[in-house]
């Protein structure tokens, strides 16, 4: 498990190397555009080596700590579902569904008629405010979905 603490600097080192390879293998006409990114990739590589050296000097396991994997994956699933729903049903419908769903599914207490009503009212008010501010007052576009809704 001790090797885990070397993983983050090693990943950065590999990515820096890959970026440098991308920059150095460009055709001559594009190479000047990569002077600055290549310099950055070298800086990143040097810094990741320094980080690695610092980890070698210290004892104990650092690695990726404090990640609650199950909860994090659920949270990320909510976001992915939201983005997918926007593409399907449009911004306003997707926002209403995700807002209401999160309000109900993530609540600590037992779901009751009162809590569902509160979530529904809260959803309605929030979506109305968003719609009035962005779509009506500021005349901004919101992403529409394949179903033609907003």
């Amino acid at each position: 498990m001790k090797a885990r603490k070397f993983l983050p600097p090693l990943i950065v080192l590999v990515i820096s190397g890959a970026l440098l390879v991308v920059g150095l293998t460009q055709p001559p006409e594009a190479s000047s555009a990569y002077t600055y990114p290549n310099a950055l990739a070298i800086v990143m590589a040097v810094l990741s080596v320094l980080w690695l050296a610092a980890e070698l000097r210290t004892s104990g396991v650092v690695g990726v700590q404090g990640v609650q994997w199950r909860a994090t994956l659920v949270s990320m699933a909510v976001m992915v579902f939201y983005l997918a729903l926007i593409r399907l049903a449009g911004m306003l419908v997707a926002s209403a569904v995700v807002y209401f769903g999160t309000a109900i599914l993530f609540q600590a207490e037992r779901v009751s008629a009162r809590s569902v009503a509160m979530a529904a009212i809260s959803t309605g008010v929030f979506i109305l405010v968003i719609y009035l501010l962005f779509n009506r007052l500021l005349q901004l576009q919101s992403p529409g979905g394949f179903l033609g809704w907003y």
Partner: protein
Amino acid sequence: MEIFQYFPAVFESYNLLVLVLGVTGGLILGATPGISPTLAVALLIPFTFTMGATPGLILLGAVYSGAVTGGAIAAILINVPGAPANIATLFDGHKMALKGNAMEGLHYALLASGVGGLVGVAVLIYLAPVLSNLALLFGPSELFWVAILGVTVMGSVGSDSLVKGLLSGAIGMSIACIGYSETTGVERYVFTPVLASGVNLVGALIGLFAIPEVINLLNASLHRHGSATMYPLNPRRIMASVRQLLVHWRTLSIGSVIGVFIGVIPGAGGQVAGLVSYDQCRKFSRFRSNYGNGEPDGVIASEAANNATVGPALAPLLTLGIPGSPTAAVLLGGLLINGLFPGPDLFSTHADVTWTFMASLFIAQILMVVIGLYLARVTRAVARVPKRFMAVAVLILAVYGTYSIRNSFDDVIVMVGLGVLVYFTAKVGITAGAMVLGLILGPIAEINWDQGRLIGQATDGVMPYFFTGTLNMIIIALCVFSVLFSVGTAVVDQRRKRNPEPAVRDKAASHP
């Protein structure tokens, strides 16, 4: 002084109404993630078509001032900067909120913004021609070094390690390279069509701060951790904050002066001013270790500086037609639409419009504090919102705000992707703060390096171009000093960690 003749015009009923509505609207729009001051002013330009030149400019100036300050409200309450200018406010502002001191943080942000804004506008009124000449001294080489001066801040922002801070910044600078190179037009690091139009700064900024917050709030809701609401909320009297602000006069002064100087430099803007001010105040503070952990000075330094840029950014605009910031560039559009052309004519033929506009900016700073303090009392309700509601509200606002910038769903995907990435990297010390610095400063450094290189090749050579000249030498000296100071501080901190001693500000002095 000529300006005093025009103050009564600001208090004419119609102009005053426009001013109050502009400041209030600016504060609200600024507090909305994704609506930057530039976007807020641009959105309101069509409203000025039928208003006439004076009320139209009063509206745009009021919205500009209000939006720069409004961004601090979102930064402190929900850890999402309303605009790039409020990044440095977030480092300590939200930490203050988490400790229950959201009201105190909001008071400091608004009061410091007011003071910085007043200093900036006073400088604009009295020194507009001098500032314009200063702006002309900054070419690509000087701007490159200003960006590098900002880069030296990276090592000390948001990370406990100099190396990790610099690495975070370098990652941000590399991310900024994605898309088309502005000087050569070559496509770089576009591995998927989603990245074809590059990484939008405001979208990235929202993602880097909002998405990790959303994940943390949802995680806490799922695990039923601690309080169901965001954070406790201690009451705070405004007069207590005013007294404390006077105690912090040194930070306020440094922030305002840095804001004035950076504001006048075309292309630098409030974000660079806020960051440089934050870093310099931290360097000269006896309570350095408190920065990043809810230090009031951090909020004051950032907000005084970013609002102090508002006035000076308009000086080269009004006198020479050179906008000092992107928002000033949009304001230039507002001037031209009303048939006003920058230059001496503005102060002779159209003196009534110009001086009334500057007088209204002065009054706007005072109104901004008064209205902002009232809004702060209302917005503090945010602290009582259950975490799951706040999480999903922030997520929806983040998506809306990001999409509205370029009407691009790709930007939304990039925003969420960057947020998830930084959620994990922050666990190992690669933080959003320094990464955002890289995203902001990287393009400024690269564009000015490329332009400077071309100028150097056509004249005396690249090295003489970048390394000679009084202004270049002064900024280089500041860069060297900043780096040496950061390294020295890191060494002292290491020693202090080995032999811990109390470095925390006396609680009674900070929070009476």
